[in-house]
Every structure is written in C-alpha cells, then in structure tokens.
C-alpha cells in the first residue's frame, strides 16, 4: 500500500487532523488507491516541460501604497468566539 497507517497518522498530524483508528485504516486504503491512480502520470515524459502554476501570465500586480480600509476592526473581531483583549484574539497557550 502506498500510504501506510503510520504515514497517514503523520500526515494527519501535519494537517492538524485527528483520526480514529478506523479512519486511519479507511484513509490508508482509500488514499493508497488514489495515489496508485496517480501513477498514470508516469506515462508522460515531462523532463523538458515547464510547470504551470498560474494561467493568467500576470506578474507583479501593484497598487498604491496607501492605507485602505475594507472592513472595521471591531466587525472582524466580532467574528471570533474567543476572548478579545486589547484588539487581540486570546488563544490557548502553545505548551
């Protein structure tokens, strides 16, 4: 299997997702199937192909360096369920 249960657990941790043992089993199987399918791309010789990261061709889109208010700070802070102190959202400690 492409993706072992250990790799699934590791990837989930990187993505800040918690999985039950059943989910680890299920995703290991399903994701391995998906990644197996991706092998089809090996059929194509891309050694001299440039990657495409965007299709508009736009580069360096600038604007005037002027302050622009799109939304009030109070309105934005009102969206959080966590306590707000001195205009900052207070989160749990890291450790």
């Amino acid at each position: 299997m492409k993706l072992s249960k250990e790799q699934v657990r590791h990837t989930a941790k990187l993505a800040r997702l918690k999985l039950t043992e059943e989910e680890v089993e299920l995703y290991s199987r399903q994701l391995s199937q998906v990644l197996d399918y991706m092998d089809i791309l090996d059929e194509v010789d891309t050694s001299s192909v440039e990657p495409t990261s965007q299709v508009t061709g736009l580069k360096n889109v600038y604007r005037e360096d002027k302050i622009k208010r799109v939304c009030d700070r109070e309105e934005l802070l009102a969206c959080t369920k966590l306590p707000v102190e001195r205009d900052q959202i207070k989160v749990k400690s890291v450790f």
Partner: protein
Amino acid sequence: MDIKTLTVRSAHQGLKDKKFSSVELTEACLARIDEVDEKIKAFITVCRDYAIKQAKEADEKIAKGEEISILEGIPMSVKDMYCTKGVQTTAGSRVLEGFVPPYDATIVKKLKEAGAVLVGKNTQDEFGHGVSSENTGFDVPHNPWNFSRVAGGSSGGSAASVSASEVFYSLGTDTGGSIRQPSAVCSVVGLKPTYGRSSRYGVVAMASSLDTMGCIGKTVSDTADVFKVMAGKDELDSTTVDMPVPDYPNLLEGDIKRLKIGVPKEYFEGGVSDDVKNIVQKAIEKLADLGAQIVDISLPHTKYGVAAYYIICPSEVSANLGRYDGVRYGPAAKDAEDLFDFYIKNRSKFHPEVKRRIMIGTYSLSSGYYDAYYLKAQKIRTLVKKDFDEAFEKVDVIVTPTSPTVAFKIGEKVSDPLSLYMCDVLTIPASLAGICGLSLPCGFSGGLPVGLQILGPQFLEEVILKVGHIYEKATEWYRKKPTV
C-alpha cells in the same frame, strides 16, 4: 405571473411594465421555496426579511420612474461559498456554522449594486469538495427531475434552485467542473469563466490557481446578463486581469456559419455512457445544421487531467483550509487542553472527503514527495493547456458532453472516492487550462438531463455564449421544466 416560465429578461420587462412588483416576484419565489424546498433541500439559509427589504427598495426605484438595470428587483440565490454581509456563510461546512461575514464578496457587492434581491444561500459540497453535493455538512440536495438522484456538485444547491424555479439565477463557483456539471444534470445553463475574468475576493478559497466565479441561469441570455455584472478587474483580487468586459448580452445574436467547432475524440471514449454520447452527437449535428463546420480534433493529454487535478487541487486546498482552526471565525471548542488540541477539535468537524483531500495535499507537498507529485502535476498541467492552445489555432470553440453520465443515484458512489473523481473527467482539463466553458441543456435520457459543454479560448466568453444562445434558440430545451 408564472415564475417557472419567467426569465430574468421577461421578469425585467414585467417589472418595467408594472405587470407585477419586485415584492410580488420575491414573495412568489419565497412561496415556491416553502412549497418545494423540503423535498429539494437546495438552501442552507433563506433570508426572507432581508429579501423583502431589498425587493421594496427595488419597487421604490421603479415607482419613482428611475432607470432600472436588468437585474433590479429579481430574486436570486448565492452558493454558500460567497461571503454575504449579515447573512450566514458556511461553504457547506459545520466548521463555519454560524459564521456571519462582516463584508460582501466583491461579486455579491456588484450584484447588490445592480439591484439583485438575495433570497438565500445554497447548499453545496463542503468547501467545494465533490461532484454530487453529497459531501455537504447539511442536507443533501435532490435533483428536481428525480428526487432519488443527485443534483450534481459542488454547486448542486445553486443548480437545483434554478432548475426548480425557486430563484431566477444563482451564483456558483467552478474549480474542476462545479458549475458546469450540476448545471448539466439539472438542465440549466452554467458558465465557468476564464480564470481571472471575475473576482475571487470574499469567496471561500478552495484551490487558488483554479477557482473561478460564475453563474447558473435558466437561459443563455440570462446568464450573459448576470455575468456582465460579475466580470471585471478587482483591486482586491490581484489575479483578476485588467481587460474591458465585453457587452455579453448584446453579443449573442447572429449566426454560426463558418464557425469552426472542434470535437475531441477523447471526450467520447472511456467512461462516457452511450446515451450521453448519442444525445451530444445529435446536438453537434444540430450545430452543423445551423451552419457551423465540425472539425475532428484530439486533446491527447485529456486522460491525465483527473490525476493532475487531484494532486494540484488538494495541495492548494491543504494550504487554504489551514485557516479553519476556530480562532478567527466559526465555532470554537471550549474544552481544549492546549492550542494543538484546540485546532484538532475544531478541525474534526470537516467532512471525511475534506479530510481526505487535505491529507492528499499535505502528503503531495511534503518533503520527499513534492517533485513526484505536485511538480509533476504542474508539468502535466502545462501539457493539458498546450493541447487547448494548439486546438484553438484550428477551431473557434470545442464542444463535448459536460458529464460522462446522467445524474447518478444519491448514495450510489459515496464509498468510492475515486469513482466520484472520475465524474469530473470532462470538465477538469478546461479548469487546468484556465479557459472558459458553458454547459447548457441538450436533451434527456430516461427523463434525466444531458448537458452540452462549449469550451472557448481564454477571455472569449462572448463566443461560447453566442454559440450556446443560437443552439438554445433553435432547440428550446429550457422550455422543458421538472414537474416538481
């Protein structure tokens, strides 16, 4: 006043002629939602009072004899992916349940300025992850043509609400086919614009290099009217291109004599069902009757599209969905031990498909796998785009089926993610190339709709809209309505 047969254009005329008011039109749509949405489930939020308020404002303008735009006073809905100020926005997910944005997405703002009456927010696959809207965190929408069937995805709610005449048009998003495919299976018109033609500001991001903001309507001309308002450069979205917006609604008439239409053989092979092939073939014959020249072409990298997309999209998704941690918006766990635990608990609300894609993306981008997966997929993307660029040197538009099959049964494919991904095989390549695409009704098989996809070069929406309009005028599939 029959909201089933009224279109944006005829409703606009009716308002101008004072045959009915915007409040009457809006109340008729709200009554229709009351009547059928229990069965169809196209809405997560219906903003009744706000809708009537907007309708009254439109009526005041009309009463004063002010000039009104074509969208003024006409009820519409918005896929729950778009931020709507003061109205709950969930992107179909419990992770954003209760989130009320303090601002409108640019496109929503533009439509409000044009007088649109927002009636509600449509359900969808969570964060755009799906082809059937079965991955919603809320109720699964049902196809108005057959309730046991899916409405397509991820803009299933939007397509169903237009198909069932609950609203006149709806805003959707299309990243890999999410406007075109549900439009095809619900027998409505869906436009996926060129990437960069319309603003992504204020729309919940799925895959930032693929997301496009389009619309779903009853007819091609309605779709053109709506898209004209949507399109344009936005200072708040630096990926929008600074090009003038063509007057789409006035570029639909004429003929398609001498227009070269490419038919790619790869789109009629493999998992495309015979009934869909036959119906789309008939549509192509109709286009030939109308004067177009049919040219056989090949898009050789078509079969690599799904694999490339399902690496690129989840990779970008894994980055974009990192922000849903319960800190700045959405429900927040109260019993977390520390910050890590807090993140874990809040992100546990994601649908399994969302978790799958976040993990595929995280894996593809992680050290040791980036070259084999993400970089490889981006190179395939170059080849897929090149296929289209070369084809458009020979033909003006490309015509294909939109969906490989008609709507499948609800629950039929839920345990097989890969088979669901294959449903997008005909819409994904155009998304990778960033070109524009239109899906419109072209027939029925066993009572279920079949859609015709018209693909055009970047920034030439007016060409595909014109071809669609001329086909629609000659065939009038839009007159057939579901019996719900």
